[in-house]
């Protein structure tokens, strides 16, 4: 352990603003890209499902029309 207390850890020997800014921006960007990828996938699947349902309902309507 390089620090004696939590306070010392957070203060980073006086370099707190720099160390924590760099780390937080990195974490934010990486988590952000992860969240974005998940949201992208979810909305895409929702879209595809909606399209599939519409295609199927149109198909069944055509069948009704035919009979």
């Amino acid at each position, binding site marked *: *352990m390089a*620090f004696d207390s939590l306070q010392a850890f957070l203060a*980073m020997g006086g*370099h707190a603003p720099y160390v924590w800014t760099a780390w937080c921006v990195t974490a934010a960007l990486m988590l952000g890209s992860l969240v974005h990828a998940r949201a992208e996938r979810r909305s895409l699947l929702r879209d595809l499902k909606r399209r599939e349902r519409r295609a199927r309902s149109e198909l069944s309507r055509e069948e009704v029309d035919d009979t």
Partner: protein
Amino acid sequence: MWAFIHKLGSPKWFYDISERLQPWFWAAAALLILVGSVWGLAFAPADYQQGNSFRIIYVHVPAAFLAQSIFVGLAVAALVFMVWKIKVADMAAAVMAPLGAAMTFIALFSGSVWGVPTWGTWWMWDARLTSMLILLFLYFGVIALRGAFASRDSGSRAASVLAMVGVINIPIIKYSVDWWYTLHQPASFTITSRPSMPVEMWWPLLLMVLGFYSFFIALTLMRTRSEILRRESNKRWVRDLVREDG
């Protein structure tokens, strides 16, 4: 070998295999980054010259490594796409470029923040930072060119050509910027190159680098899978998959 490449080229095969691989890479990324962060932030000894500000190295160096590797990966994917017409390679390239730009930005930002305690200024025309800045512009060019074409196929192929041209230029740019830097700032000190770094500082860095690479692979797999669904949405297997899913 050829059979393998062509199998890899099949979007469906890639979709299935990546589904199985993905959790492993996510787990590896989470574990490595978590252990590396705690080790690097709390347990690694402070630097005798820079004090605790050196702990920025644990995000700066992995991001910089990854930023350069992703561009090489982009060029390899471009080559595979152009030579063997493997569409999955282009889909991967399309999702890799924004992540590469993000990593370049992280490297630039953390380097510039690091500059404040070490150089006393937010920006220095340091060789590494300058090369990173140029790399960021190269990423912007590839992303912008892909989006500029009305037809997706033209955009893909144009971006592929540019990625290959860029990857040939990166070593030349790096070399010339290094040369330019030594000419203009002979006796300045570079943040990340030091004669010797104690082992206790190296281990967390290694973990972080590996963790960032795992994160990149996992995220690329995930987004490539989405891209496959988007581009192949009219294929039978995608429609079956969507129907089964609910």
